[in-house]
């Protein structure tokens, strides 16, 4: 990606920022949900005990938070 393309994306379109901020918010929501579910697992995880031990909501929330956080900062409005 050259300098001009970065300028267009960051100053005008911010498509990556939109992606980042949505994933960041979703990640935070999932992390909070995952923490709550540590002591109160959802029905599908009760049915599949191996799944309960993996805490997928928490881990996937963490991945989305990192991904979303990186893109939100990297392509934040006004950054060239």
């Amino acid at each position, binding site marked *: 990606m050259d300098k001009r393309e970065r300028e267009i994306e960051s100053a005008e*379109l911010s498509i990556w920022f939109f*992606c980042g901020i949505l994933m960041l*918010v*979703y990640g935070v929501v*999932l992390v909070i949900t995952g923490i709550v579910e540590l002591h109160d697992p959802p029905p*599908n995880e009760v049915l599949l005990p191996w799944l309960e031990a993996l805490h*997928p909501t928490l881990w996937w929330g963490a991945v989305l938070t990192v991904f979303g956080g990186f893109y939100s900062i990297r392509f934040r409005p006004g950054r060239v």
Partner: protein
Amino acid sequence: MQFLAALLLMNVQLTKLAPVDVLILVLYFALVVFIGFYAKGKANTSEDFFLAGREMTAWIAGLSFVSANLGSLELMGWAGAAYQYGILAAHWYWIGAIPAMLFLGIVMMPFYYISKTHSVPGYLKLRFGEGARAVSAVSFAVMTILMSGVNMYAMALVMKTVLGWNISFSIWVGAATVALYVMLGGLRSAIINEVLQFVLIWAGAAMIPVLGLIEAGGWTKLKAQMAANLGTTDYGHLWSTLGSFKDNPMGVHWTGIVFGLGFVISFGYWTTDFLVVQRVLSANNLRAAKMAPVIGAAFKMAVPFIVIVPGLLALAVLRNPDGSLMHLVPESIAATTGQHSYNEVLPLMLIRYCGPGLLGLGITALVAGFMSGMAGNVSAFSTVWTYDLYGAFINKKASDKHYVAMGRWSTVIGMLVSIGTAYLVMNAASIMDYVQALFSFFIAPLFGTVILGMLWKRATHWGGFLGLLAGTMSSIGMFIWVQSDAGALHYIAMSPNAKPMAENLYRALWSWIICVLVTIVVSLVTEPVPTENLSGLVYGVTPIPHDGSTTIWQKPIFWAIVVIVVFFVLNLIFW
């Protein structure tokens, strides 16, 4: 499409959303509407509104290009096909897409791009005259608006089946949201949402194959479990069972996959369907326009992970509450017995692995896919209507501002017609099958016309027009023949063992051959187009400008080679 009719007959919803799921869905809708208002300020001229100002980077145009095709109907349908036919369904993502996408980027995009056409019908006008443009524009406008309605109804029906939502509520909320953001921001708004949707689909669906493979114990154990459950290893091979129609679950032959799917259908769709080509035309320079389909192809190759793998996993691990293996059934049986159909496999797997939060993310990804499907159709319709019908035949000399206003109005009116279509389909589900078939009538012959137009300077206006007409009519004729006499499939697919899936492949192949033959014969007996009129339109008489790449890393052809090598490796691995 028949699965939607089956869903309609089911009264039991699969699951319900927790408050956190609703929060995730509401956040998505809020962002989508915000994007519409954000993009409105940048959609002042017709170039802005219809082609996003031609300032998209290769990555954005590429992701939008692949995302425009990645609707929820497609995701759910092909996950169901993977359950029904095994890994053979991956052909529609690999040989049925990758070579054509690369061909578009490397060979065809320079012509689309340097001719400065606004649409595929616009290119046909430049190359073959008003007749070919009119046929192509009218058929495309009608089809896109019908498809938008089908998407709308499909979303409403899935929401009803999975979550118990009211059908009219889903139709009107979905349509109003899409109409708002496309009307405000035009193609730019649609593209931003498509890129967002692509990320969302991966975020929402990736957990299914990941957790599924953990449960199955890895790919090797998954294949072993499938073989044990099905009593055959045929479902795990891409090519080794295609030597005969009767040796594979799909009832097809490798010639149908390679020539029918891999050549005609795939090239027809990916290189001439304006819905996807429009995304690439928004690229900010020639190199970006060439790179966008290459980038799209790289991502397209990964999609089977979230579509095909869940279907295969269901064959191995999906069980009833009593622990017995769950057997999904065809739509016709599901409608009478109340069992789950093949096409419900993705929601079933989503519910199996995803609790509150993750479920909301998965459902939001499906909703985003449906809305993106509607937006893609409506934005392409608005462009073709304004440029190739209204601007070409009704009001040729209006101001740019007037055409932008027409684009906005045609978006709203198009959406209202789509809503009407959705209600029409609700009362006669079989209409959807015909809408799908109608698309296939035009795409294969259109590819014959466009490719001859680009590569053969001797092709004439009459040759292009009559070839397109003959190919389309022959496709319709073969469709009617098989509909009225199932035995006709024997002749079209050239085998008594062919199954319905083979008909689509061979009908496309024959209609393309007829289009090409008629175009060649008519062109040879009609007056050639003067060479000076073909500059910028045809290979051999058009100086292709350098795309500006300096290093090998910047060259689209280098990355196209990388993608095609990976494509061959994948086919060998899953042979």
